């Protein structure tokens, strides 16, 4: 560079006659960039209230406040983030972490006020907060503030590619459909430790799942323990609320996963498989849990039915120090779970693992003891201080169409396949029903067909009243069934079982369904009488629902038992029926009809029983 002179600088003067480059703000508007990180916008419909934004905020600028107008539902809390612009640094981490992608930043950034209280507010969007958003033509810069914002003014918005959470779950290793449809081996292989930790690492700990779970398991805690590589600790957390992890880890209806905040834009965390991972990884429950029942109270409790509800009741009550006896007509524990879920989903060993642990707590099990047959209900009432009914639904319903007595009932079919000799099926099987039991039946049937008729062409078709969109079975189940080759005939109703000359089943006559539910939402199917179809079949299995068997209860007592309008036993808040000292839970009480709800009922009834027993003197 030259030393310079004193004349060259005067060249600057020519700029005097040029147009200035100044933006004449505010007379000339200047829009912020498309990605500008301005004030927050929250889509209240999408927001789950999970609170991840509040957790990630480095400044504590976000707190979750309860909005009384919003009804909480599974997967949605009635909380919404409240921003404090005296803290916010507009980094946008809250946007990148927001699992449903509800939170975004807008191009708005004007808020000038003499009152610091106006700087904190609950962000909404045009729908939930209409009076604070104005049309672009009514928008005035001079009035711009948190309560005067421009409509449709996008800024920094969420992008799943750059999200801070992992939207895709670690794939669960499974047996391929071609292979698994040939045998009863367990379909799901379970996570390895590495996979389980990777999956557990996805959890954002928002605890939406815990609220959705009927039994309120401490899900985020036990998943964190898995992530930290402490399956024993994880098991301890699970056992606080759920004594049958090996069972639930396989067949739980996973209300939690439906509620998972990750599921909105990605795949839900596989909470069930993680529980299963814990249950399978920990070999010795007793060593891991180190539980000791409370000192004996001397009170005696009888539990009828060793299903999930009964087992949980036994576990919780045993821990309280009561003497517990469990009656069940089956040769082992598990109740309906012992017979219902096919082997490829729930092997007997898994059930026995859970039952054996409960046994180790001092619970007395009387298997093969049918109440009403081997021992009368009246005797039980006399011998025990309290009784818990966890009998579940043990009778399959029939369609009651003509010749339906020739058909096989679902539960019989399943039970025989699981714990007795396998059923012989024909080459053409029709399964009536669209629920999960129907799926189990159909998938078992196709396995049996492959085993019993190797190399031959076999068909299992399913007939259900409901169309695809309202089919009650899980989507996953339907997908897996399809993969295995089940043919679906949705929206067809059975009319007639056709017999051939020898009285064997020839086929099923079906009608097209017009609608399944009436206007009030009650079940009352109507049909197009003129549209008919014949499904050829040599075996027909009915899987249209179950009912409870109360025949063991003496008539005079049964009359005292009160029922709800939906034909469920009516219980008070402690799970006690209208008969004093008789408690009930599970499928005979709730309408969810699944294991984890039975556990939840059992937890309630445990309190009730404990309360009840402490009030009566030791006999």
């Amino acid at each position: 560079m030259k030393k310079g002179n004193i004349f060259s600088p005067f060249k600057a003067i020519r700029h005097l006659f040029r147009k200035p480059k100044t933006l004449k703000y505010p007379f000339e508007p200047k829009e912020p960039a498309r990605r500008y990180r301005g004030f927050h916008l929250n889509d209240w419909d999408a927001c789950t209230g999970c609170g991840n934004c509040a957790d990630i905020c480095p400044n504590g600028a976000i707190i979750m406040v309860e909005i009384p107008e919003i009804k909480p539902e599974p997967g949605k809390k009635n909380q919404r983030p409240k921003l404090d612009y005296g803290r916010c640094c507009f980094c946008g981490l809250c946007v990148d972490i927001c699992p449903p992608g509800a939170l975004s930043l807008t191009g708005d950034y004007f808020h000038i006020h003499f009152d610091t209280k106006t700087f904190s507010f609950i962000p909404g969007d045009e729908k939930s907060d209409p009076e604070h958003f104005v049309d672009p033509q009514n928008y005035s810069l001079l009035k711009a503030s948190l309560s005067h914002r421009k409509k449709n003014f996008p800024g920094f918005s969420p992008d799943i590619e750059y999200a801070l959470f992992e939207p895709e779950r670690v794939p669960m290793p499974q047996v391929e459909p071609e292979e698994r449809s040939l045998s009863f081996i367990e379909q799901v292989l379970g996570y390895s430790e590495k996979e389980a930790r990777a999956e557990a690492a996805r959890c954002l700990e928002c605890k939406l799942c815990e609220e959705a779970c009927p039994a309120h398991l401490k899900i985020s805690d036990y998943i964190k323990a898995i992530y930290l590589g402490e399956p024993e600790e994880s098991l301890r957390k699970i056992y606080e609320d759920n004594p049958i992890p090996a069972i639930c880890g396989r067949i739980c209806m996973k209300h939690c996963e439906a509620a998972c905040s990750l599921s909105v834009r990605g795949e839900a965390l596989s909470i069930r498989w993680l529980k299963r991972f814990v249950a399978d990884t920990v070999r010795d429950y007793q060593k891991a849990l180190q539980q000791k029942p409370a000192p004996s109270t001397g009170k005696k409790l009888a539990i009828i039915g060793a299903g999930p509800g009964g087992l949980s009741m036994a576990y919780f009550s045993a821990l309280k120090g009561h003497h517990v006896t469990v009656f069940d007509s089956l040769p082992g524990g598990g109740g309906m779970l012992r017979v219902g879920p096919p082997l490829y989903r729930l092997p007997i060993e898994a059930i026995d693992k859970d039952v054996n642990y409960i046994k180790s707590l001092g619970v007395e099990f009387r298997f093969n003891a049918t109440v009403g047959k081997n021992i009368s209900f009246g005797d039980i009432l006399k011998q025990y201080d309290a009784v818990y009914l966890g009998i579940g639904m043990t009778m399959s319903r029939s369609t009651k169409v003509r010749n339906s007595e020739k058909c096989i009932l679902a539960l019989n079919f399943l039970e025989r396949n699981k714990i007795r000799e396998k059923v012989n099926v024909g080459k053409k099987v029709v399964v009536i029903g669209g629920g999960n039991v129907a799926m189990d039946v159909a998938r078992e049937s196709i396995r049996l067909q492959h085993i019993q008729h190797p190399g031959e062409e076999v068909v299992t078709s399913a007939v259900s009243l409901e169309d695809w969109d309202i089919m009650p079975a899980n989507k996953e189940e339907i997908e897996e069934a399809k993969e295995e080759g089940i043919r679906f005939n949705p929206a067809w109703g059975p009319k007639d079982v056709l017999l051939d000359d020898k009285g064997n089943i020839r086929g099923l006559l079906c009608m097209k369904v017009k609608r399944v539910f009436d206007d009030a939402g009650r079940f009352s199917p109507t049909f197009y009488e003129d549209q008919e179809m014949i499904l050829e079949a040599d075996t027909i299995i009915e899987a249209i629902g179950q009912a409870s068997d109360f025949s063991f209860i003496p008539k005079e007592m049964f009359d005292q038992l009160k029922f709800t309008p939906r034909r469920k036993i009516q219980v008070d808040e402690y799970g006690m029926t209208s008969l004093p000292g008789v408690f009930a839970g599970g499928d005979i009480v709730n309408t969810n009809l699944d294991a984890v709800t039975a556990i939840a009922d059992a937890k309630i009834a445990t309190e009730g029983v404990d309360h009840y027993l402490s009030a009566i003197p030791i006999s």
Partner: protein
Amino acid sequence: MDRNQIKKWLESPGKMGHKYSLWAVYFCTGCGIIEIPPVITSRWDAERFGVLPAPSPRQANLFLITGYVSVKTLKAIIKTYEQMPEPKYTVGFGSCPINGGMYWDSYNTIKHLDKYIPIDGWIAGCMPRPEAIFIAVTHLWTLIDKGMAKGYVKYRENYGRYRENQEKALGKLEWPRLFPIKDENE
């Protein structure tokens, strides 16, 4: 300039003068200062509205407190603020003086600036953009017009309590009191 303007000028030249001749103290209190040079230079040119940086607090009537205020800066701010002649207006910039901002848990920054000196207006943002500063100036005009920018009066009237707060945060202040402290019980 329309008639209304002229009428206003004749009625209250003081107010109008202060409105259109805001000289800001040139004090880089925090990171918000980085947006002041663009505002006063060619891209945005705040001098169009008479906003200028003043070299000395004696000449200024606007104090932009730009961003976080550490304890040591607070002392300088109070000194500077007390040097400014009345009337004077203060504007707090960004999140940090409002409620601590991202330094909400720092042991060396103060969280609520209005506990120590009165603030006439706050601008949201981290940090506020030049546009927001312009809009803030127009808001300040409105406040001056309506006679609401009375922070300096508040300071004079509640000087005792302000001074008490200042000494709580800073320890004993070495300079004499600006105003005689009135008895609080009166």
